[in-house]
């Protein structure tokens, strides 16, 4: 059950989120009006540049910021629960890199089916699942959290090396497609692609909510969870599956985005001070969305002075935060 103080925090988030999303819609360099927003929603004119920018550029970008923030944060929370380690996350444990490797393989094999949306999406999903399973396999043998993190980093380096080799031998055009994808962007998603992304992510979130009891049990250790009647093996596989869906879909459409999956769940835990995963999942959805929206607003506001890719900004904010968490744990 959600506590009273958490309800207040959720109300604050629920008020902030639409306000920030609204701000995001009008944060671009091109000045648009409320009329453009209203017109693009109610009377869309495909020849009106204002309507096009609002509906086809800003709305998908805003939606993608929210969805990617929420999805990666929940994926990070699941990883942290699975490995009982606050420093786990899809990026650190090599799941995002696994997605990248499979996308690189698919783009640079030169087979046209793989360069379609479906091809990139399925490759990213398979990559995330395979690398999730690999890290799960190693977690059986890893004696400490640090060892597992190091294994994750090594797996990430290993797949990055493969990506570099593939890049060396790829055709210029394929290399270009891959490099553009790997740079990460919230802008490339189209209005028509949004329903597919929403469907996958909603499916992931729903699965996640069905796992709340198991996640709460796992938070007190797998042995205790078994005693409570949880089928730990099955839950672990489901966690990997959900993480792979969330990470894979976002990585496929936006490219790899670093640190969100690591930083936001920790921020949620600091703010909400709970181990109740129902609360934490909802918190991650809210905070992740707000975090990514704010990052993207910063990018748009700074555009005239400095061009920042989304991946660079999330790392600039996320990396110091992770150092803070490590230092906090050490002390």
């Amino acid at each position, binding site marked *: 059950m959600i506590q009273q103080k958490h309800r207040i925090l959720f109300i604050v988030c629920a008020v902030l989120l639409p306000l920030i999303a609204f701000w995001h819609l009008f944060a671009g360099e091109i000045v648009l009006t409320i009329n453009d927003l209203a017109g693009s929603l109610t009377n869309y004119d495909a020849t009106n*540049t204002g309507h096009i920018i609002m509906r086809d*550029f*800003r709305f998908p970008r805003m939606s993608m910021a929210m969805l990617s923030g929420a999805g990666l944060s929940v994926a990070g929370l699941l990883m942290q629960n699975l490995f009982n380690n606050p420093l786990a996350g899809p990026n650190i444990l090599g799941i995002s890199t696994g997605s990248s490797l499979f996308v690189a393989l698919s783009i640079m094999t030169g087979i046209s089916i793989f360069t379609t949306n479906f091809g990139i999406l399925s490759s990213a999903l398979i990559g995330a699942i395979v690398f999730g399973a690999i890290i799960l396999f190693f977690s059986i043998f890893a004696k400490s959290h640090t060892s597992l993190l190091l294994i994750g980093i090594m797996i990430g380096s290993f797949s990055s090396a493969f990506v570099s080799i593939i890049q060396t031998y*790829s055709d210029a055009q394929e290399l270009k497609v891959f490099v*553009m994808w790997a740079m*990460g962007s919230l802008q*490339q998603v189209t209005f028509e692609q949004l329903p597919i992304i929403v469907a996958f992510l909603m499916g992931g979130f729903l699965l996640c909510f069905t796992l709340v009891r198991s996640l709460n049990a796992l938070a007190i250790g797998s042995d205790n969870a078994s005693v409570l009647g949880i089928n730990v093996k099955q839950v672990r596989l489901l966690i990997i599956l959900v993480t792979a869906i969330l990470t894979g879909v976002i990585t496929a459409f936006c490219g790899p985005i670093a640190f969100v999956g690591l930083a936001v769940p920790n921020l949620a835990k600091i703010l909400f001070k709970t181990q109740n995963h129902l609360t934490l999942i909802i918190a991650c959805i809210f905070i992740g969305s707000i975090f990514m929206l704010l990052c993207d607003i910063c990018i748009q506001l700074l555009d005239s002075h400095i061009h920042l*890719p989304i991946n660079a900004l999330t790392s600039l904010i996320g990396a110091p935060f992770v150092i803070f968490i490590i230092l906090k744990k050490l002390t």
Partner: protein
Amino acid sequence: MKKLLIIPFLLFISLSCGNSTTSVQQDSESSEASSILYAKHFKISVKEKRTILQIMDPETGSVQHEIDISSFKEVNNPKQASFVALSSTHIGMISKLDEANKIVGVSGMQYVSNAVVKANFKQKKVIELGEESTIPLEQIINSKANIIIYSGFGKEFPHQKQLEKLGIICIPNYDWKELHPLGKAEWIKLFGVLLNKEQAANDYFNHIEKEYKALKELAKNSKKSDCLFSGNVFGDFWYTPAGESFNAQIFKDANCAYAYENTKGIGSLSLTLEEVLQQNATCKYWMNPGASTLDELKQQNPKAVFFEAFKKNNVYCYSRKGNNFWEMSAIEPHKVLSDIIQVTHPEMHLEKPLYFYSQLK
């Protein structure tokens, strides 16, 4: 007293003038072996009967490298050049002088379109050396090359000093920094000297200069073209040639209404997608998006569909012959200009098939 002070001052001035004359006289001892008309970043001169190649620093204009290339020009038994050519344009220039057989090393075969180099690679007469920064020293020595032409991104070639001790000359080629299309093409004169084919290089350059100028004149006499924009999105930003850049110069010479012709800068402008759409939504021509089909373009940039040029199928790119453009366009700027004029000035009825460019389908 004042007069007394003026005397040493005048003496100083006269001595200073005397020094500068000496310096001019010293300079006049060296004469230009090859007249360079458009290229800004190299000179070939004769100093004390030695042929000296000077490569200028593109940033400052000062001499960055001075290389004695006399041995390649000797009347009796000149040294035979054998090249490691690390950029596509170098391959194009060497092959234009019918000396592609003198290329023994390239960066990556996947980027080569020259048939001679490809055939020689199959016969193991050409080796692949990889990226400029990570090039293996021993493989260069094995290739028996005596000249390495590199792009000069890092100013000095890796292991340059060791290679020079082995008699291998490293020459940075700043053709990519030239702002005039004929300046870029003029680098063929450098290859002409190295291959002892100066006359052929000069003749070829004079030919393309004449062609280029004639086309430019023709375009100038026509009305300005409909609006044109260029480039594509990469990551989160749209890169397009700045108003003073090499590509903008070609658009200008083709009398095109290039959307960013009045901007400052010699490189690229990075713009947001929204800005480009707002400024060019109804623009008629979209050039150089870096794709060879409309599907490929849509995959690279899903928002391409909102441009009128895309909807009306007025997108053109240098994709007719694959990598051939990168090898030959620098040395055939008149063909690039001709293509752009044909695309943007249909009223001129040039009626030649497009050479490098094709309409995306």
